[in-house]
């Protein structure tokens, strides 16, 4: 109907159309009578056939036919010839309806229903499918039906894979065929079927997709498949330990509340009021099952029996990349203690995809407990002055950030080779947007695999340049490239001790605490946190961050500057709730409160609507304010802040300030003002 002039119909056409309508109406009403009165004679069934041939959308008629077939089958007992002829007739009606509209859900479903009666011949079904898939090779009804038939008849996945070969060779642009191929291959690779070992098979797939991409670089299908292949290449099933704090071979200096006496130059100094320090494990993928039996601790520190490990993630989830426990120490008992940790001592650490942590890993560090002499002062932390350039030798840093269990991975070589050959291949295609993006992704993957210090980090400049080009070329996806640029930039910063030390400073105000300053870098996303677990003071001001996601792993963090970013609500700071050491937080000059969340619109807009919430004192005294500022309430009440800067946000004002004082009673500094007692 589309594309035809509507008003130009001639009188005779009008008449024909009217006659057709009359005929349809009479068919329809006769059919309804039959249906209502449960008449299943041949004549009545024939009538529904006619109706469906005119309008395959009449699902009532399909339902009628199902009842009619059941009725007929019950009457003929089990004469196989009769059963076959009844069901054959159904298949014929479906086929003729599909010729009328091959996108009719009702017709395809009716065919599935017939097949599920045990009536099928795989040859016939595949022949029919070939016909429809030739007509429209993207018809997803046909593809879905094909997968149904294959499963029903146990046709081999290898045979189906050959079918996708044909379809792809026929037309490289057929994304449906590529999709089916990835589904089939995933299954075959997972089974380690004969001829489908990843290291043998995946390189062949790269060859196939190259021929598609190089034939028409503007076609999306091949690129998506390539992305999937890259994922298969990088996907190491076994979870691995990426980093820990304290790291292997390091010495941490521990003291009680306040600052350490004297000028200990070790920057792995940690002070705690509670007399305990966190032990952090960072895995390359989310795992569950970290406990005192899967991770054993052999230490001379007293009072540490069975340790309780907690996943740092959403409260209901028992899987996470980051796991933490706390080790106790007594600061009046200065001494050095060795601590030995064995991860994977007994089986039980399992990735969320069900793979076991299979390579036990052991690391040792020294805990140097100091006497506490000086009391802490509740001075204000300034982010503008009091910083000295980092002067330590980078050797110190090495012991903090190196841990690469990746090298232990035996199945690593083919992956590296595959990525290398892809990098070489796409170097020449990088004049298109998708070519640049693919090359940038490949180079990132390559860098992640490099362990040789001599060549580590050399390609980051190239990656950053690719994302810069993309931002300029393709403004509609600017933010996406920007985020990737930030990730690559942070990988570069953390790729070597030299580059990291350029961002390290000492803050005199807190006894030369080490401060990582990543301000003014137009970062829009946080990454590489696994290499920054030691950081206690972090300056991320003057960036373009929307959220603090990722920072939850930094369990030592006590001072954080997020001023002049793009935080839109306190919910975006949710991950900070896990950072129990956080004392100083600057979120001034963001967009908090500018985009108000309309809490009346959403079912679960606020956790207040969850049953698990029970109001505390503030909630009881000020239910109105809690409802108004629920996102601030839920984040701030879980933090132990002493200093908060909130000025320069839409939300700030007298009402909000007084609300903050109620939920954070221990606060000493608010927006630079010391609070009276």
């Amino acid at each position, binding site marked *: 109907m589309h594309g035809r002039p509507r008003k130009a119909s001639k009188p005779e056409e009008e008449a024909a159309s009217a006659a057709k309508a009359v005929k349809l109406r009479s068919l329809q009403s006769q059919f309804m009578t039959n249906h209502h009165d449960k008449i299943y004679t041949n004549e009545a069934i024939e009538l529904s056939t006619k109706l469906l041939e005119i309008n395959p959308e009449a699902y009532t008629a399909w339902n009628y036919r199902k009842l009619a077939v059941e009725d007929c089958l019950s009457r003929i007992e089990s004469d196989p010839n009769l059963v076959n002829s009844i069901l054959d007739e159904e298949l014929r009606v479906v086929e003729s309806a599909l010729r009328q509209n091959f996108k009719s859900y009702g017709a395809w479903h009716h065919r599935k229903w017939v097949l599920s009666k045990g009536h099928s011949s795989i040859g016939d079904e595949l022949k029919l499918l070939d016909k429809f898939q030739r007509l429209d090779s993207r018809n*997803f009804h046909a593809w879905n039906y094909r997968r149904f038939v294959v499963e029903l008849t146990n046709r081999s996945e290898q045979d189906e894979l050959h079918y996708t070969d044909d379809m792809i060779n026929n037309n490289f642009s057929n994304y449906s065929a590529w999709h089916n191929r990835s589904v089939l291959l995933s299954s075959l690779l997972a089974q380690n079927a004969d001829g489908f070992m990843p290291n043998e098979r995946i390189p062949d797939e790269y060859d196939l997709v190259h021929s598609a991409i190089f034939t028409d670089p503007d076609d999306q299908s091949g690129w998506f498949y390539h992305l999937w292949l890259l994922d298969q290449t990088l996907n190491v099933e076994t979870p691995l330990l990426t980093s820990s704090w304290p790291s292997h071979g390091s010495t941490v200096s521990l003291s009680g509340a306040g600052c350490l006496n004297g000028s200990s130059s070790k920057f792995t100094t940690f002070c705690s009021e509670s007399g305990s320090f966190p032990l952090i494990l960072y895995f390359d993928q989310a795992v569950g099952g970290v406990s005192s039996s899967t991770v054993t601790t052999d230490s001379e520190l007293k009072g540490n029996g069975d340790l309780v490990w907690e996943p740092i993630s959403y409260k209901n989830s028992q899987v996470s990349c980051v796991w933490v426990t706390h080790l106790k120490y007594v600061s009046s008992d200065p001494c050095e203690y060795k601590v030995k940790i064995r991860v994977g001592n007994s089986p039980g650490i399992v990735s969320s995809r069900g793979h076991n942590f299979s390579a036990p890993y052991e690391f040792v560090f020294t805990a140097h407990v100091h006497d506490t002499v000086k009391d802490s002062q509740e001075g204000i932390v300034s982010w503008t002055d009091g910083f000295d350039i980092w002067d330590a030798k980078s050797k110190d840093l090495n012991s903090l950030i190196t841990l690469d269990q990746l090298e232990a991975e035996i199945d690593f070589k083919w992956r590296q080779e595959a990525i290398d050959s892809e990098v070489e291949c796409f170097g020449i295609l990088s004049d298109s947007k998708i070519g640049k993006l693919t090359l940038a992704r490949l180079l990132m993957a390559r860098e992640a695999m490099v362990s040789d210090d001599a060549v580590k980090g050399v390609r980051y400049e190239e990656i950053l340049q690719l994302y810069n080009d993309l931002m300029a070329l393709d403004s509609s996806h600017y933010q996406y490239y920007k985020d990737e640029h930030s990730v690559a930039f942070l990988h570069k910063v953390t790729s070597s001790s030299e580059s990291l030390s350029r961002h390290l400073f000492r803050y005199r105000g807190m006894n030369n605490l080490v401060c990582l300053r990543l301000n003014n870098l137009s970062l829009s996303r946080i990454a590489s946190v696994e290499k920054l677990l030691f950081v206690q003071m972090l300056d991320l001001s003057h960036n373009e961050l929307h959220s603090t996601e990722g920072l*939850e792993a930094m369990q030592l963090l006590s001072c954080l500057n997020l001023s002049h970013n793009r935080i839109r609500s306190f*919910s975006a700071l949710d991950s900070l709730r896990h950072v129990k050491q956080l004392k100083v937080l600057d979120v001034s000059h963001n967009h908090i409160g500018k985009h108000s969340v309309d809490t009346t619109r959403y079912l679960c807009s606020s956790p207040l609507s969850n049953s698990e919430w029970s109001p505390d004192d503030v909630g009881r005294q000020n239910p109105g304010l809690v409802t108004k500022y629920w996102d601030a309430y839920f984040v701030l009440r879980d933090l132990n802040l002493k200093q908060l800067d909130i000025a320069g946000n839409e939300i700030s004002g007298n009402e909000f300030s007084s609300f903050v004082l109620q939920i954070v009673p221990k606060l000493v500094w608010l927006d630079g003002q010391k609070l009276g007692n």
Partner: protein
Amino acid sequence: MSETTVSIDSDRSKSEDEDEEEYPSPVQSFPRPPPSVNFEKDRHLMYLEMMYELLPYHYQSQEINRLTLAHFIISGLHFLGALDRVDKDVVAKWVLSFQALPSNRVSLKDGEFYGFFGSRSSQFPIDENGDLTHNGSHLASTYCALAILKVIGHDLSIIDSESLLLSMKNLQQDDGSFMPIHIGGETDLRFVYCAAAICYMLDNWSGMDKESAKNYILNCQSYDGGFGLIPGSESHGGATYCAIASLRLMGYIGVDLLSNDSSSSIIDPSLLLNWCLQRQGNDGGFQGRTNKPSDTCYAFWIGAVLKLIGGDALIDKIALRKFLLSCQSKYGGFSKFSGQLPDLYHSYYGYTAFSLLEEPDLSPLCPELGLPLLAASGI
């Protein structure tokens, strides 16, 4: 309408343009005037009013979806701020006449579904025993019926929602998906969405097992980030909408997912964002699947997903607006592709898309319900 199959509208049918070609013909045999640079509100109003009075014969194969067509017209009029053109009492009475009511409480356990019929041709009069014959009430029609009632401001608390919801449970399968009618039918994400929207509109979740529905949805996410209609199928714009909107309605994903902590999210939002953004083509419009032409309705299906996950700032809105205007008919309404005649389905999703783009003259949109935002009636 090859792609639009996903939506609630076209659950059972597609044939309104059954003889349409798969791709629009790129060359027009006669010169066409350049498309208007404005959203022609008055013409759209005229178009909908015309449809309200009388449906053209093109829709005859859609007879079975009469309630759906009515929803497009009435909710469309609301977007245009012209709901006063509708006699609300007459509409409410008409819609309610399609409700399937159980004859007594016992029959609620008989496995049937007591929702709404799509049209008279799937509805029989109640027999002398007060029983329904061949109760073919349908989830999608039920969604549309409730949507119309909501939009015209009818008080939903006075309809028999208990039998509707109790019996709706009969439609949910072990894998969490829903059948559209109790007699049987294909199960996929469209009907999970209908069920979630129905529970949401009736403010009562006793009609479904949310946890198992959630698991079904998660099984439909493909490796490229989008969602297919059933597990293992190819990512599709409409299916992706059904997935994300259902998760939102059920409360499994929060507002502004991308800005918040995505490690705590049950879906992979960055992969989803990636897939959605790649669907915007060079012509500014959105396609439903990889390597398909842009189509008006996906401006809504995918635009709404982006809105729901907080990624709508990344849409090239100027280009999208330009594409939509190229599909605006000079008679009012929108067509699937530029240069074709308009239809109700694409017109309605054209209006929702313009509402998403914050066109000043249109009612704001509630993206998860696909309806105008109705503060007064609690949406």
